[in-house]
């Protein structure tokens, strides 16, 4: 595998994470539990979609087959998406959305901090830009995890059950194969091992403060990075791609 090919695959993965999570979070628009959170979630979705545009446009350039960010976002089949299973999970209640966001933001902040120093100029530029936004998302989601975990009996038990449901998707965050090995050797991406240790430490700390318990069941689900998804992605794509599939090449 050549470096360019590996980098295309890698940028697609993290671009798909932004796109799919951005779409999920945007589903809250007009449905937030309070006005301020409706606005917050919509802003976060907008940042993620913006980051997805930058990443997928870059992936298209690396691929060199004339596909731009829009073509990659709207015209692939579900098995061609490389996002984490975590980000395609349904919104559930506000607590589940926040918890999913927190698990992702904590990882993404660590990743972007390191990618800011990537030897690949464009990847580094996107990371520097995105990091400023993602840090703000992490502050928002961390504070809410603590508030809900350490809140009322109801908020505590609901966010705890979301943690029980989502924890099995967290191992996959640190997935690495030959693509990562090649890019890591060239200083383009960081080692996932280092990120995993720091992530585990950080989220454990926040969960302790929130009075939440990490599930002891160690069964883990993976597949997203190789295109094997949960049933939820298909429904999401049906909505995301509807206009382009119904009216090919339509322009807004």
């Amino acid at each position: 595998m050549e470096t360019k090919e590996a980098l295309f695959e890698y940028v697609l993965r993290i671009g798909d994470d932004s796109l799919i999570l951005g779409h999920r979070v945007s589903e809250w628009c007009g449905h937030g539990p309070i006005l301020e959170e409706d606005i917050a979630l919509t802003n976060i979705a907008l940042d993620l979609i913006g980051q997805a545009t930058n990443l997928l446009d870059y992936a298209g350039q690396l691929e060199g087959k004339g596909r731009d960010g829009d073509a990659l976002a709207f015209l692939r089949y579900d098995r061609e998406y490389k996002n984490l299973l975590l980000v395609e999970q349904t919104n559930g209640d506000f607590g589940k959305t926040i918890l999913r966001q927190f698990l992702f933001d904590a990882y993404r902040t660590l990743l972007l901090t390191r990618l800011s120093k990537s030897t690949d100029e464009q990847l580094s530029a996107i990371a520097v830009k995105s990091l400023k936004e993602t840090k703000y998302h992490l502050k928002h989601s961390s504070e809410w995890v603590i508030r809900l975990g350490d809140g009322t009996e109801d908020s505590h038990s609901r966010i705890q059950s979301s943690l029980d449901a989502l924890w099995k998707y967290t191992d996959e965050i640190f997935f690495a194969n030959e693509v990562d090995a090649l890019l890591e050797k060239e200083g383009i991406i960081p080692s996932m091992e280092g990120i995993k240790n720091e992530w585990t430490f950080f989220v454990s700390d926040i969960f302790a403060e929130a009075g939440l318990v990490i599930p002891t069941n160690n069964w883990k689900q993976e597949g997203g990075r190789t295109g094997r998804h949960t049933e939820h992605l298909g429904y999401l794509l049906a909505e995301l791609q509807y206009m382009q599939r119904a009216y090919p090449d339509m322009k807004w």
Partner: protein
Amino acid sequence: MVSEQDIWKYLEEVSDPEIPVLTIGDLGVIRTISLENELCTVVITPTYSGCPAMKVIEEDIISKLHEKGVPNVKVELTLSPAWTTDWITENGRAKLLEYGIAPPEDEVDKSVLFAAPTVVPCPKCGSRNTRMISQFGSTACKAHYQCNDCLEPYDYFKCLK
């Protein structure tokens, strides 16, 4: 024959579509302007990755320069160096304040959880007795505040470093 300086001057007439009181120059999103073989290239940078105003700004730059008799215009987007609120000009800050939007304050590290929100003086009465209503606001670049003294609700242009 137009010069780069002329182009800068023409673009003072292009305002931010979401905060019309600011020109794109005030906002600091124009990075470079170059003229080569009759082609004018304007390089701009987004404030936030998903800022929906960028597309409109691009179109506005092109139509403004066409109006001024510059036919060949290309607008390019760059991400590096990343935009910071430090690039908003002094004039821009004064205009924001006058318009009722509190300009960016120097902020402490955002990663501190439950840190006391930044004190943002009220743009209407100047009081420092204000409170943050929401970390997020009407656009990606703003947060929402209210004055405890005159009760004015207002936008705060968040500091981004």
